[in-house]
């Protein structure tokens, strides 16, 4: 290196030396800034995952949210009625294989089933010639937060206290006072009519997306999967920690379950950027096709475990809207997927070996 020093003293000037050091140093600083090191307040996917781990406790190998679940498979059959609005191939009259997952919201993989807990259905629809669609839906009418930061703040406010093991009502109250949209959404969620199980439940996209048709015309949409099977007679009330899942897997062992995909067409002025706001009643709804699920499998080795239900895996003919939640879910799910895929996982709560259909 003394050779270089000698050459530099021969030919260098302070300005030139400054450029030699300054250019790479500036690039390195810009790189670190892009990675967010100078802005610790920035909400990163890692921050959200850390929040889930701190609120629900570490559960290695499990999804950080919707942790308790079961895999299902079946197919989706389009009927062509959504094709004037979206050019996605799966809406035409053909059968696309489906991998799905029923789950309870929240990061606790061993929580007890209960009637009022939020249930979810995630789907991966795989048309034979490509144009895959993934989605995660919930059985609530609206989402609780306008953006990921509010979601993260609420999770932190709802962290159980060390002494009482329950959330501090004062902190939740303060959050709700500052976020009337969340308070309003909560009241709508509490008023929803509860179905008796996963099979008779309707699941909503909550988020808005844009359908794009063959002419390039866009339509804002939300959608719902509405059950075709009627609610069972009242006498079949089940109990047990996993009664919702046991019911579902027992039913699927007997017969397939069917849902209609109802597309809700938004009108100009309907809020697409705010998933806490319901669209006015009476919007045109299109029956786009039928989802049939005919088999349940445990998550342990099941077909839904090695995939993430990233809501931005969209076919040609569906694009994101200005709703900020899908991008946040996409980013955080990717982080959760990476984390859990590299961890040793304990057996899931819902293991079909002990359930009536004994797969």
């Amino acid at each position, binding site marked *: 290196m003394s*050779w*270089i020093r000698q*050459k*530099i003293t021969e*030919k*260098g000037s302070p300005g*030139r*030396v400054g*450029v*030699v*050091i300054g*250019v*790479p140093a500036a*690039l*390195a600083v*810009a*790189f670190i800034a*892009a*990675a*967010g090191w100078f802005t610790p307040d*920035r*909400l*990163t*996917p*890692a*921050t*959200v995952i850390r929040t889930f781990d701190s609120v629900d406790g570490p559960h290695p190998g499990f999804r950080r949210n919707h942790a308790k679940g079961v895999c299902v498979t079946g197919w989706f059959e389009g009927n062509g009625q959504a094709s004037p609005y979206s050019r996605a191939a799966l809406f035409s009259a053909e059968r696309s294989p489906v991998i799905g997952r029923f789950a309870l919201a929240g990061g606790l993989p061993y929580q007890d089933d209960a009637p009022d807990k939020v249930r979810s259905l995630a789907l991966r629809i795989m048309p034979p010639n*490509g*144009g*895959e669609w993934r989605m995660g839906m919930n059985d609530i009418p609206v989402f609780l937060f306008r953006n*990921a*930061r509010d979601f993260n703040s609420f999770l932190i406010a709802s962290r159980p206290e060390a002494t009482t093991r329950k959330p501090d009502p004062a902190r939740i109250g303060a959050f709700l006072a500052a976020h009337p949209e969340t308070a309003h959404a909560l009241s709508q969620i509490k008023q929803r009519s509860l179905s008796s199980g996963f099979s008779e439940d309707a699941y909503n996209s909550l988020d808005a997306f844009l359908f794009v048709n063959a002419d390039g015309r866009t339509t804002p949409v939300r959608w719902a999967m509405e059950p075709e099977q009627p609610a069972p007679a009242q006498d079949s009330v089940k109990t047990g920690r996993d009664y919702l899942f046991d019911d579902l897997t027992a039913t699927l062992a007997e017969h397939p379950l069917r849902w209609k995909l109802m597309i809700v067409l938004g009108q100009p002025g309907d809020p697409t950027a705010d998933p806490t706001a319901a669209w006015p009643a009476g919007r045109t709804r299109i029956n786009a096709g039928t989802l049939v699920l005919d088999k349940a499998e445990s998550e342990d080795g099941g077909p839904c*475990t*090695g*995939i*993430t239900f*990233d809501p*931005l*895996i969209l*076919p*040609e003919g569906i694009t*994101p809207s*200005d709703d*900020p939640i*899908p*991008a*946040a879910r*996409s*980013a*955080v799910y990717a*982080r959760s*997927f*990476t*984390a*859990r*895929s*590299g961890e040793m996982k304990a057996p899931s709560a819902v293991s079909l070996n002990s359930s009536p259909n004994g797969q």
Partner: protein
Amino acid sequence: MSERKYFSPLARGLHWIMALMILAMLFIGVAMVASTGPAYHRLVGLHRPLGIAILALAFLRLVNRVASGAPSLPTTLPQGIRLIAGSSQVALYLLMIALPLVGWAMLSAGDYPVSITGGVTLPPILSPDPALYASLRALHTWLALGLFGVILAHITGALVHGLLLRDGVFQAMLWRRPQVRTQIE
């Protein structure tokens, strides 16, 4: 070959286009994985097609490099420096090719569709395997940080040649004539 002072025009063109693409790619990558905002999806939408373009250009560049070679370094440079320069170029070529391939393999193992743009989806190059996905995802980050480090060293070396040593090594990648007095010394 030893008389040539410049890289071939194709090599120079590829170098500067890819320099911009790879730097943009590294910045998009680190910004993307630290984002939960709407930018996340847009950045992912840039990251994948750009990565595949870099992979294709890197192969073209490798073929061109093997076919048309490079101007040799000045004999006045110490042996150690020449060894470092040579191995850093090997590292740059390896990483330019490995990073997009690991990205593609990682998405395949994670059972993500490798969507590039406008409905174009590449076939998977691995079967789905979550544990492998997790390892490749980590490898992708480490290789990217490694590439950024080698690029910083490369830029520093280039500037030392261009501004301090002024020995024609930096100019070999430019179109401007070098001030040739260094060759006489």
